[in-house]
């Protein structure tokens, strides 16, 4: 095997470019409203004059930085920049609130690093096999995976179970706004052409999750968001490495989930982080402490979210199918540099494939170092007085929703969703299921309809001995078990028994 690609990847100039890329990605990931595709869109024109390997390195560095950067605002401010970071807020935010923001951030960063490295290493050896597995996924299997992810929402519901399902239903209905999949029928747009394309996911996340929290915080005291003063030093970050030893099983499990979900185009980090979170809770000795600042609740979604980075490369490199918008932007760099991605790339330029995985590993190391060094500065955000922080965050929310398609209409939708989110949360309805329902609703409907068209009926699809059938069966069983467990008589009987 020719290892000359390693010398090329370790070129100091290239490493410098990659550092810039990682920093750009982290910055865009951590500012609510900005996101990884945006950072990649900025970086793409800069890479035109670079060599192929330099261009791809910079873009992959931006991608890795952006995937991980989202955890900062999710943990400190409960403002996930992407749907994938929502699960991180469940335990990250409560942990930061009780004065352990450094610990929460450090756990998230280290888990992200582990997930990224794991997927890169796995994919270095298994890309051809995983690509074959991805090819075997038809509409029924995708439907199974989407519906399975949706069923995981039931395991995340805390408090009133019925309200949790109602919230999820609301998210699913919001996902139906705009044109329907397959036939393009416009639904629930109230005659507003701006809604024909549906509600932007960024607007929904910022509105329901972030803006409602800003409005709620404005009504509380003027004290900083973090109630407890904590000592912050870079040493604290490295101390968390010891704690991570107890999370090895969780890290591996979540990284495998993330890598596998990553190779399936379209499902994305949100499904991966949610399944990983639900599994971490299932295997935990203290499942009741999830949602109150359990470290496993931060480690699982972050490891899964970042292991997407390697997984998402598989369909792109092996099949020429970009699974998400950031990957599509990276793929365009290949095209610009005259490289045709697809099955032949593996045969004709194996050294390029190897370089990509080495670049992914280096990018993740850089991400760990940068975030490790900067974490104490990030963590200080929550000590900014609220009368300064909240209005600035509100401005970022408005910018974020405006730039999603350069429309002030989106800003109006943001305010409506923010008010709705505030009212729902104050009246006992959880907000996370709304987002989860919204993100997965479109996928469930799309693949359901494709399945029917492909197999003629759902019964025919069900008769297929495939992983899709298995996932659908589990997806039906999981909520039923949760519902039965929540029936008062069963709860009383269980309490009596224990």
């Amino acid at each position, binding site marked *: 095997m020719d290892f000359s690609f390693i010398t090329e990847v370790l070129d100091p100039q290239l490493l410098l470019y990659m550092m810039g890329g990682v920093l750009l990605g982290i910055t865009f990931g951590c500012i609510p409203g900005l996101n990884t595709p*945006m950072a990649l869109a*900025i970086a793409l024109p800069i890479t035109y004059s670079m060599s192929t390997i330099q261009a791809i390195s910079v873009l992959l560095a931006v991608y890795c930085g952006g995937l991980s950067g989202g955890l900062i605002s999710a943990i400190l401010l409960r403002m996930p920049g992407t749907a994938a970071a929502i699960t991180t807020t469940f335990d990250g935010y409560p942990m930061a609130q009780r004065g352990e923001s450094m610990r929460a951030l450090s756990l998230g960063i280290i888990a992200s690093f582990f997930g990224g490295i794991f997927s890169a290493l796995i994919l270095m050896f298994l890309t051809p096999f995983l690509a074959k597995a991805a090819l075997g996924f038809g509409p029924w299997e995708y439907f199974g995976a989407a519906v399975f992810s949706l069923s995981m929402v039931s395991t995340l519901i805390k408090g009133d179970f*019925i*309200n949790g*399902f*109602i919230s999820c*239903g*609301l998210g*699913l*209905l919001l996902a*139906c706004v705009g044109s*329907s999949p*397959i*036939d393009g*029928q416009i*639904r*629930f747009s109230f005659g507003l052409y701006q809604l024909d394309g549906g509600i932007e996911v960024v607007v929904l996340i910022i509105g329901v999750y972030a803006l409602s929290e*800003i*409005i*709620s915080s*404005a*009504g509380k*005291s*003027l004290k900083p968001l973090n109630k407890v003063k904590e000592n912050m030093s870079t040493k604290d970050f490295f101390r968390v490495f010891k704690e991570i030893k107890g999370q090895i099983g969780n890290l591996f499990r979540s990284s495998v989930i993330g890598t596998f979900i990553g190779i399936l185009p379209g499902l994305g980090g949100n499904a991966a982080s949610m399944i990983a979170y639900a599994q971490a809770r299932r295997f935990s000795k203290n499942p009741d402490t999830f949602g109150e600042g359990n470290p496993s609740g931060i480690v699982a979604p972050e490891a899964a979210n970042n292991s997407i980075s390697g997984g998402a490369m598989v369909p792109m490199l092996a099949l020429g199918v970009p699974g998400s918008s950031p990957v599509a932007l990276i793929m365009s760099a290949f095209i610009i540099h005259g490289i045709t991605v697809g099955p032949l790339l593996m045969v004709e330029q194996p050294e390029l494939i190897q370089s990509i995985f080495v670049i992914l590993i280096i990018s993740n190391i850089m991400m760990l170092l940068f975030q490790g060094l900067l974490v104490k500065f990030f963590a200080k955000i929550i000590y900014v*007085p*609220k*009368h*300064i922080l*909240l*209005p*600035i965050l*509100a*401005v970022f929310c*408005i*910018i974020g929703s*405006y*730039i999603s398609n*350069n429309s*002030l209409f989106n*800003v*109006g939708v943001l*305010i409506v969703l923010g*008010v709705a989110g*505030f*009212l729902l949360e*104050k*009246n*006992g309805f959880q907000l996370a299921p709304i987002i989860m329902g919204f993100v997965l*609703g479109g996928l*469930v*409907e799309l693949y*359901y*309809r*494709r399945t*029917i*068209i492909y197999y*003629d*009926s759902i019964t025919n699809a069900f008769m297929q001995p495939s992983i899709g059938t298995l996932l659908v069966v589990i997806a039906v069983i999981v909520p039923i078990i949760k519902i039965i467990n929540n029936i008062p008589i069963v709860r009383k009987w269980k309490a009596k028994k224990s």
Partner: protein
Amino acid sequence: MGYIVFLIIFALIPGYVIYETSGYKINVYDDSGGAGLFPSFIAWFMLLLIIIQIIRTLINKEKKPVVFTTLFSGTSGIFLALMIIYVFLLRYLGFIISTCIFLIISSGYMYYKAKGKLITWRFLLQAAGYICFSILIFVFFKNALHIVLPVGNLGI
């Protein structure tokens, strides 16, 4: 009772969805149930859950207070009102001016509400900071990201 009223109002959402989807036409070649199948299924499911929730509240005689007025009173209400005005002004005054106004007023109000006074030098310093912040953000988005944030009638 308030909670039940809240749920009834909430039930209007799935109710509307069921009403609208009932009028959707299905293409003869489409075996998948058409555009209305998925939303109407979800809506019926939601409606069922809301009814269960109402019955449960009635049986248990639970007295759940409804939070509604909180949103429109106190600092939260003022902050929300300022945001709505800010969004309205964005179209006419543009990003820089409306953001400056929003930041200065909302921040000043929140500080005054908490401390009961405004320190002039601090207020002026913060106002200067907010003006710089608004201009910097606008310039950054325009020059670095090639995104023009709203420009008002004054051309800025």
